């Protein structure tokens, strides 16, 4: 076989690179990744709105030039202020590139997540839910924690028959009275402050009320005793 001219080889290389690039960068046709929506999941018939939640579409293919800051230095940063953006929510390994990860406990880096009922009272370890390495980001399409399968892959291990709605329980609910709760879970926040006000209001009324009534009765008694003393003299 004759050696192909240089120009042909360059052309072939370019073509394969471009095909690969197109495969990587080409947007997937809308709907090819469709999973029924969270609100009406498992309804056999769904009239699609065309809007999909983040976790319902495949993560975009790894794009060679756009990198998540701190994981790998790309040519183009994710965004100018990428360092401040929490952008680990769609990774296959949410701890990729974190220094000293192996030497620390989960709690030392995620103190807020160690406050939940499962950890504090049921005495579970983080790994019983989050699994072994690598710990995928919650929203990663293939993560066991992805809301489309969390109930089956995680919760159902212990809660037999857990359904998708059960998986909607917020395991790491923010502290109910906190600002975070006000933003992310307003009903929890409102419930907390309503009950707190009720508690404080009830006690602030009834403790002084009972105590003062008791005190007044004491004085009334004293007076009675005095009166009795006078009448017997």
């Amino acid at each position, binding site marked *: 076989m004759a050696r192909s001219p240089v120009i042909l080889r360059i052309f072939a290389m370019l073509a394969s690179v471009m095909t690969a690039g197109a495969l990587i960068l080409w947007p997937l046709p809308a709907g090819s990744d469709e999973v029924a929506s969270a609100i009406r999941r498992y309804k056999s018939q769904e009239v699609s709105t065309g809007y999909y939640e983040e976790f319902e579409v495949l993560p975009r293919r790894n794009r060679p030039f756009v990198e998540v800051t701190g994981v790998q230095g790309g040519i183009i940063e994710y965004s100018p202020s990428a360092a401040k953006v929490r952008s680990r929510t769609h990774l296959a390994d949410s701890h990729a590139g974190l220094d000293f990860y192996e030497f620390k406990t989960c709690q030392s880096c995620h103190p807020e997540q160690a406050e939940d009922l499962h950890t504090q009272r049921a005495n579970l370890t983080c790994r019983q839910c989050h699994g072994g390495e690598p710990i995928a980001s919650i929203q990663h399409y293939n993560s066991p924690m992805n809301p489309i399968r969390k109930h089956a892959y995680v919760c159902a291990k212990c809660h037999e028959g857990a359904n998708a709605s059960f998986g909607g329980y917020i395991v790491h609910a923010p502290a109910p009275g906190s600002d975070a709760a006000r933003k992310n879970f307003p009903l929890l926040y409102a419930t907390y402050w309503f009950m707190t006000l009720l508690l404080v209001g009830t006690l602030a009324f009834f403790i002084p009320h009972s105590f*003062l009534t*008791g005190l007044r009765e004491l004085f009334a008694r004293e007076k009675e005793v005095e009166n009795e003393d006078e009448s017997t003299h």
Partner: protein
Amino acid sequence: MKTKARINRFNVIDRLFHLSLMITFLLQTATGFSRLYIGTVWGRKVNSVVGGYEGSLQLHKWVGVAMILGFVLHSVYLLTRIKWRTPLKSILGEDSLIPNFKDLKHFGQQVRWIFGLGPPPRFDRWTYWEKFDYWAVYWGLPLLAATGLMLMYPLATSRLLPGWSLNIAALLHEAEAILAVTYIFIVHFFIGHLRPSSFPMNEAMFAGSIPLEAAAEEKPAWVARLRSERRVPEEGPAAPGRWYRVAYFVFGYAALSCGVYFLINGLLYARHISLH
């Protein structure tokens, strides 16, 4: 003039309801709060006494179901207490626990009396704080029952409601329990035991009857009303027997000490727990 006449205040059924409420309430406090405080040394200690992590939950659930049954029974009993020939008068009248405008008036008079600005209010059968005591349980119990059932059957609940409703239910259950426990162990115990007119113990709920004199002093309008209706018997019910009195004093003080024990430790350890 000292008479031995007594007047009925609570019949046997009322007292049995109160007794079973006391026992179930204390059991729920012990099991529930030991689990709420399971992260602390004290919580684990108490929890091991009431059945351990699993056993205490089992007990908590059964006692909870018993309380729900008690609540339903009590509600049926309430219906039988209404005089159906004159329902309005019976529901809104003076023998009823439904709050009315007089309670507001009495509250104003009570405040004036406390500060020495007027005579004490002439209470009828129920003072406004007794009414509050009653209704506090009556709305607290269904709230605890509903949220408790939600947590007891989380899967069934999540079929009807979104999963995050369990977060709300758990918070409501804890917060309402804390409210009930602090109210009962501080306010209710103070009124029942420490108030000069009840010290060392208000026996009405156990003896069933109280001396007519005491009634006339505390609830003058009630006794006057009964007198005008000629419903005050000469002698009235018998005074409680000595050993019965001993029994309920011991029981009452045991309950009181349980409550104070939970209150003090609960407050001491409060900063080590979180309501998640």
